[in-house]
Every structure is written in structure tokens, then in C-alpha cells.
């Protein structure tokens, strides 16, 4: 194996998707936690902390989606997925959209200098559940949760 070969760096023995996925999961869950706490305690500082966590979580989803799709295309040669792999792909895409949606709601509210809408809370709660389930499936596939 060549240490400067792109495929080797990205996948061999050390799949980057598996490493990078921890960032959006952790940042998003913490961001939602801060948002719920900020709502409950009526503290603006927690809302700001939530916003920045959600912002970085949304950014962190992009390399995760890219490395996941690249792994599918390179390592599995883009073959038709089924079972747990397909479920993981679909739920991963849904999770990414939800993370970006939650960040967008926060970003637009801050830009317009409005109060955060109440409907975001059930969206955030649902997103946390879906992100957690996706992570569980990923862990199962990689053998961590098996």
C-alpha cells in the first residue's frame, strides 16, 4: 500500500467516513441540547452556543456524506445496495437534510432578528432520533454495535 495513494489514505484500514461521522453527530446532539436548555432556562447564551454547534454540525455533514458516497462508489463499485447498507444510506441522507434544516431555521431567525419558532423543537427532537438510529446502523455495519 502506498501512503500517498488517495484510496489508501481514505479507506485502507482506516475508513475516513467512520472517523468523520462522529463530528456532526456530537455537535448536533449537543447543539439541540443547548437549544432545549436555552428555551427552558430562557438564556440567550445557551441559544448562541446552540447556534454555533448546529452551524459546525451542518458544515461537518458535507465531508461525511462525500466520504460515504465515495466509499460506496469506490469500495463497492456503486453496486445496488440493499438491507442495512441501503437503510443506512437513506437514513444518512435524511439525517444530513434534517441537520442542515435545523441550522437553516436558526440561521434565518438570527438573520431576521426574530424569536426562534416553536415548531423547531419537535423537528430537532425527531432529527436527534433519526441521527441516533443512523449512527446505530453505522456502528452495526462497522462492527462496533454488533
Amino acid at each position: 500500500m502506498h501512503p500517498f495513494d488517495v484510496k489508501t489514505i481514505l479507506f485502507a484500514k482506516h475508513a475516513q467516513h467512520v472517523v468523520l461521522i462522529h463530528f456532526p453527530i456530537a455537535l448536533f446532539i449537543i447543539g439541540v441540547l443547548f437549544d432545549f436548555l436555552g428555551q427552558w432556562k430562557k438564556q440567550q447564551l445557551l441559544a448562541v452556543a446552540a447556534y454555533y454547534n448546529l452551524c459546525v454540525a451542518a458544515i461537518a455533514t458535507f465531508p461525511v456524506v462525500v466520504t460515504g458516497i465515495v466509499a460506496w462508489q469506490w469500495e463497492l463499485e456503486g453496486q445496488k445496495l440493499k438491507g442495512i447498507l441501503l437503510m443506512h444510506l437513506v437514513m444518512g441522507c435524511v439525517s444530513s437534510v434534517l441537520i442542515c434544516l435545523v441550522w437553516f431555521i436558526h440561521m434565518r431567525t438570527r438573520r431576521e432578528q426574530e424569536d426562534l419558532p416553536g415548531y423547531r423543537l419537535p423537528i430537532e427532537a425527531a432529527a436527534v432520533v433519526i441521527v441516533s438510529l443512523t449512527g446505530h446502523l453505522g456502528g452495526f455495519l462497522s462492527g462496533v454495535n454488533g
Partner: protein
Amino acid sequence: MRSVLTIAGLTAALVLGTLVVCTGQSSHVANAQEKMPSIEVKIDNFSFGPATLTVPVGSMVTWTNRDDIPHTVVSTDDPKTFKSKVLDTNEKFSFTFSKAGTYPYFCSIHPKMTGKVVVQ
């Protein structure tokens, strides 16, 4: 009466002939299978069992995924000598080794899962 006997005789000959041909074919197939032994590698608990397999030239090796999660069987050489699709639970992949040599392989979903087929 004679024509009935003729028809019966022809039918019996046809049936017997068919039986002889079918039996001959099945024994031919059986002989071919005897010549080419099939060996199984079990994929279970994130490992190939046995991890190293020694087989004679012409052997067909069959990998069976007994694990709960999908795996692949991919040779490490380039270009790939063999490469399976994603194998779900209880799915199989077979490859016949027609040349002597050592064939290391791995699971492309779990690169730490490795195995080797030694063909003598």
C-alpha cells in the same frame, strides 16, 4: 394387435433410451464434481474461517456469510482476481482457482477482515 405391440415396444425403447441418457448425464456431472472439490469458507463474527485455506488447483471455494451484517470477498491484487457483490446473511460467493499461487483477500466493508487461499 401387431400395431399395438409395435407402439408399446417403441414406447418402452424410448423410455429406456431416455433413462440411459439421463443416467449417463448425471453420472457425468457427478464425475465432474468429484474432480473439482468445493471447499467452504465461513464468514462469521467479522472473520473468515479458516483464515488461511490450502486447496489443490481447480478447486472451487465458496464463501458463505453467516454473519448478521453484510460482507464482501475481494482479492487484494490489482486487477482483482475475484470480487464478490455485497453478501447479506446466508448469501454465497464462489470462485474456482485454476492457477497455483497465493491469493490474499479481504472484506472491502471491513478492511481488517482478511484471509488467504493457497492454491497448490
